């Protein structure tokens, strides 16, 4: 169609609609109803909500969570305190530590810096959504094999970051791993093991840290 309006993705112009359905009387009535519906949809889409709680539906790990949340509630808060998905952790609540990392449409983000109302209609994956039927994923297994966790508080966030990286880049270099996961902080000091775990999960050779046990003589 040469109609310039039709170039805009998802935009349904009245002209293009009219052209496509012809000009019968029935079509005419339908057009009027559609036009009203369009206008209503626009008004509704721009409607102001809050500040009190409003219905919010989140798609988390393939399931729908129907919640009542104020607009100011973050995704992290919604997961942990309005549902029982406490796997994502609160380390700083300021987008500086990564303990709250989740994937939104396979993209890792800080859930503490995302308003829950903004992620409706998107696929949210949390740490609880990775292992299927209780079986650890390759990334989780690698973390366990390499002892890439200690107290475990930063672990869900790191697992999410490494998982997201490998979805995007299945043969990362060391620089790639660092650049992808530097947004996750660990105070216990698991970093060298996390590097090993990422390589193991990617199926590439693991440059292990050198440790030797020597019998003191």
């Amino acid at each position, binding site marked *: 169609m040469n109609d310039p309006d039709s170039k805009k993705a998802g935009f349904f112009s009245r002209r293009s609609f009219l052209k496509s359905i012809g000009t019968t009387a029935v079509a005419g009535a339908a057009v009027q109803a559609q036009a009203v519906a369009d206008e209503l949809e626009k008004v509704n*889409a721009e409607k*102001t909500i809050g500040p009190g709680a409003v219905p919010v539906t989140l798609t988390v790990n393939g399931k729908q969570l129907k919640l009542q949340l104020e607009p*100011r509630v973050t995704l992290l808060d919604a997961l942990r305190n309005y549902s029982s998905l406490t796997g994502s952790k609160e380390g700083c609540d300021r987008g500086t530590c990564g303990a709250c990392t989740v994937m939104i449409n396979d993209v890792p*983000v800080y859930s503490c*810096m995302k308003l829950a109302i903004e992620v409706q209609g998107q696929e949210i994956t949390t740490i609880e959504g990775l292992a299927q039927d209780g079986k650890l994923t390759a990334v989780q297994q690698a973390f366990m094999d390499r002892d890439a966790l200690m107290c475990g508080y930063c672990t869900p966030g790191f697992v999410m970051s490494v998982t997201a990286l490998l979805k995007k880049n299945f043969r990362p270099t060391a620089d790639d791993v660092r*650049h992808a996961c530097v*947004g996750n902080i660990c105070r216990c000091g698991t970093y060298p093991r996390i590097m090993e775990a990422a390589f193991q999960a990617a199926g590439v050779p693991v440059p292990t840290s050198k440790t030797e046990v020597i019998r003191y003589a």
Partner: protein
Amino acid sequence: MKSFQYATALSVDSAQQMVADNGQYIAGGNDLLGLLKEYLVDPKTLVNIKSLPGLDKIEQGKDTWTIGANVTVAQIEDHAGIKECFPGLHWAAWHVGSRQIRNVASVGGNLAQHSRCWYFRHRDVLCLKKDGDTCYARHGENRYHSLFTGNQCISPVVSNLAVAFAALDAVAVVQREGKPVSMKMAEFYADAFTSPTAHNALKPGDLILRVEIPAVRNRSHYIQASDKQEFDWALVSCAAAAKVTDGKLSQARIALGCISPVPHQVDAANEFLEGKTLDDATASQAADLVLKNAKPHGHNEYKIPLAHTLIRRTLLKLNA
């Protein structure tokens, strides 16, 4: 955070109408949520501008590239064309925060972000920038603060992208009172240089639409120095860009971040480089010109030799 209303705008006009009554735009939300959580801003309504049509594209034109305000920093980092044509912009984006931040951070938000000065960001310090009486940094902890300023506040601009855009002579197009207004980076931050309470020259309701980059400069680079290797604000950042033909520079621009409320540029330095071939001596002289009249405060004098080094190294990369 205090409570607020929330609405999604579907057109620029709607957005500007909605924000008029004590509203704030929310794009990526990194900066805004940080400000809200510390009770530094108090909007009645958050106006979501992520659904505005046409603001999320990177487009290569014949003479000009256009980057929509809603393009994420991650998209810039990942864009092969930008890495090839504007490596300075690529590296500036690469260094922004962490991947999680870049995935949601918008170009517009990165430019418009508020001061990171720790006095400004502190919930219980009423500093000059928040309409208090005193710039606490002046006689206090100012290791991260400006070497140049036109007013009492010494908080510097820290946006990586702004520094790269400045070196590329890019223009931000801002919708103001129904019309698009074009501003180079110097104009975009002008008010921050002159007024203590300003972070940039945006007026209430202004909506950043896009950034336009002239394609004339075929070489560019960006380097920053920070305490940590990554995920750290720069102590000093530097971008340089020029058209390089047979080793000779033309239309060179050097810009520094984190030392002034505006990406710091000096015309004399840019002019000095016109027609020159880059070597250590030229780069050093240019650096001297850029840093002339730098005024350190109690604890940020280190930024001067640091900036000098970054300028030299960034310029010499243009030869590569």
